[in-house]
């Protein structure tokens, strides 16, 4: 069975919401929509305080090469444009919207359920449409999707790779999307193939989703050049470089991008958003979110508008269980702990995971035994134990020589360490320090 070259771990899968059909989450009364919800330079607001906006209307436009548009998920009035805390407590500019009860859709948006199969736009028009509709990578990084499709000169795409692995425990939003919107997924893939001018697409799905593999394999027979590949259930199968290796046996060189080995990778959620954008003219204003956790009363997969307060979603699902210890945005391996529960969701909020005190507490830390399990587990072939020791001694240049910057922060090292050493925490600090060093060098 195909998989990545080395490393990886097997966390408990806990896919508790596999069978929960996606429900529409009701509109909130008040919403907070961040001006910028992507990786890159900030977007520029095009509406002002007091303006009445319609659902799907442009709120902030692209201002820079790596940038994305932001649209209004609601019909309502902008009560203010001010700083708001995101779920990590970091303050960012946001539109505060008083939401009206009924959606009034921006003109040109096809809001019907009808499937549009025929792809009318040309390659360039598709990329322009993706850009206009504010599509960003929904796998978590929120990288503006259209930028990936502007292939630098001298490079050539050979494969479109669709990441339908969903290797994070607990998360089922992609899986549900694949079950319920399979047609849209395949049309989305066709659109992206056309945009890239490639005739081969590879879809990677972990073996723990046999239903999805079956239905996708069956569907792929109707399309030319789409291959569905079942991959070994092993975390981090869905990490970009690991996925490319598993599907093509190509190794993205250190510091390079997938396009350097002829690949463009998109998450299945992004693919579906591309379908809506290109075929239905729908901007990215909502996403599927899994609300889960072992003690949660009503676990659900929800279609949530961007800007919905996180605590209202938790309330909707029966509130916080008694012994809650940690609340996470994303999966347990790479997600971030939420510090501000009243913060709104963003385009990439794929999950809210509520963990008990016991489940989320870290192991007692003991001295390193040099067991080498972190080295076995590292999918990038690094020596986390070694880099962590260098970091503890503040030898940042040494951490750079030991390839700290190649760390993908998958968390396998910290997951596996029997001594409970904060390996990834130290690696993150190293990466930060090395980045600072590099900036200083560049300035000199």
């Amino acid at each position: 069975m195909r998989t990545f070259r080395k490393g990886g771990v097997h966390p408990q899968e806990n896919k508790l919401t596999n069978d929960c059909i996606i429900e529409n989450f009701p509109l909130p009364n008040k919403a907070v929509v961040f001006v910028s919800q992507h990786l890159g330079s900030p977007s520029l607001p095009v509406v002002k305080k007091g303006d009445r906006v319609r659902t799907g209307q442009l709120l902030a436009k692209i201002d820079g090469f790596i940038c994305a548009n932001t649209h209004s998920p609601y019909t309502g009035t902008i009560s203010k444009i001010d700083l708001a805390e995101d779920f990590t407590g970091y303050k960012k500019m946001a539109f505060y919207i008083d939401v009206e009860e009924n959606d009034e859709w921006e003109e040109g948006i096809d809001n019907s359920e009808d499937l549009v199969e025929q792809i009318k736009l040309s390659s360039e028009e598709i990329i322009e449409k993706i850009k206009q509709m504010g599509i960003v990578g929904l796998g978590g990084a929120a990288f503006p999707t259209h930028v990936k499709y502007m292939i630098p000169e001298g490079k050539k795409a050979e494969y479109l790779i669709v990441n339908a692995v969903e290797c994070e425990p607990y998360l089922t939003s992609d899986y549900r999307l694949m079950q319920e919107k399979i047609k849209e997924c395949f049309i989305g893939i066709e659109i992206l193939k056309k945009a890239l001018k490639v005739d081969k697409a590879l879809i990677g799905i972990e073996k723990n989703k046999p239903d999805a593999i079956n239905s996708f394999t069956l569907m792929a027979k109707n399309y030319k050049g789409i291959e569905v590949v079942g991959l070994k259930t092993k975390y981090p199968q869905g990490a970009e470089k690991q996925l490319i290796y598993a599907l093509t046996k190509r190794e993205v060189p250190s510091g390079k991008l997938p396009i350097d080995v002829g690949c463009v990778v998109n998450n299945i959620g992004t693919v579906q958003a591309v379908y809506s954008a290109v075929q239905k003219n729908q901007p990215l204003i909502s996403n599927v979110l899994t609300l889960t956790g072992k003690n949660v009363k009503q676990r659900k997969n929800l279609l949530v508008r961007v800007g919905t307060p996180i605590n209202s979603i938790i309330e909707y699902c029966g509130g916080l269980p008694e012994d809650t210890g940690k609340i996470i945005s994303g999966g347990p391996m790479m997600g971030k702990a939420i510090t501000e529960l009243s913060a709104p969701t963003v385009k990439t909020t794929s999950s809210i995971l509520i963990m008990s005190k016991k489940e989320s507490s870290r192991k007692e830390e003991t001295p390193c035994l040099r067991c080498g399990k972190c080295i076995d587990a590292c999918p990038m072939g690094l020596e986390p134990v070694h880099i962590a020791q260098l970091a503890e001694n503040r030898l940042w240049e040494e951490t750079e020589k030991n390839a700290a910057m190649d760390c993908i922060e998958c968390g396998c090292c910290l997951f596996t360490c029997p001594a409970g050493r904060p390996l990834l925490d130290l690696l993150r600090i190293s990466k930060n320090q090395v980045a600072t060093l590099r900036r200083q060098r560049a300035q000199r």
Partner: protein
Amino acid sequence: MGIFTVSGSPHVQSKQTTKQIMWNVVLALMPMFLVAIYFFGLDALIVTLTSVFLCVLFEWLIQKFLLKVPTTISDGSAVITGILLAFNLPSNIPLWILAIGCLVSIGIAKMSYGGLGKNPFNPALVGRVFLFISFPSKVAMSSWPLPKPLFGGDTLTNAITGPTPLTMIKSGQEVDLLNMFIGQTGGSLGEVSVIAILLGGLFMLYKKVISWHIPVSFLGTAAIFSLILWLISPDTYMDPFVRLLSGGLMLGAVFMATDMTTSPITHKGQLIFGFGCGVLTILFSTFGPMPEGVSFAILIMNAVTPLIDKAIKPKKFGY
């Protein structure tokens, strides 16, 4: 609303802990312990328990009064050192000598370097070699007490009358080999029964406490090297099977050389480490003044471990 934790990812961890690893090693040592008590009687019990008690006591005293740090005796590592030290000694060792061995193992070989995870040499081996050099008449290789017979001879001989696949072995040695395997030869507490050692080793493999790399490369190298010597001159050199089944080598390869702290961290490095142990063991025991060289071989390779770790790096992704 309560107070919630905020920390970096990952938010889940594997179940294995240092404590579990240590207590699993202790469990893996139990078959040998039972065999030792069966063959050597009360002496084995007394020597082992005393050794464990003193090792734990010394670690506690040093942490509490000398270093003034929180005591960590419950992690089980001192217990392992105590058992392993006892298993490397004869059952008739005077207890005051044993006490010196415990003090050297814990005080010098472990705590002076900073305790768990910091020691460059296997503490139990340091203790053993210290006693071996200081009290050769009490801990010498030639004076091992013999274990009592398994059930009284007859059943044992009956059990091995079938043809042996090891045709190169002379018929007279067949009984010896099986005896060695079960534990009917002279030796230290832990090394008499190869089958008990292997049982413990398999348990540790199953519990992912050790990997196969060091034992296999250690034993493999020793077997091939002694086979070559034996093929050159069967009369001068020892039968490789006798060599393999001499408990000291087995105990060393499975329990002593696999100590995580004192062996290389990468699997490739572990293969080199095992190879070095194998070559040195055969060299020492064949051409050296003593009949056995496992302890010295492992200690020397312990010293080489940092160099191996420096030289052998995993292959990085994307380079």
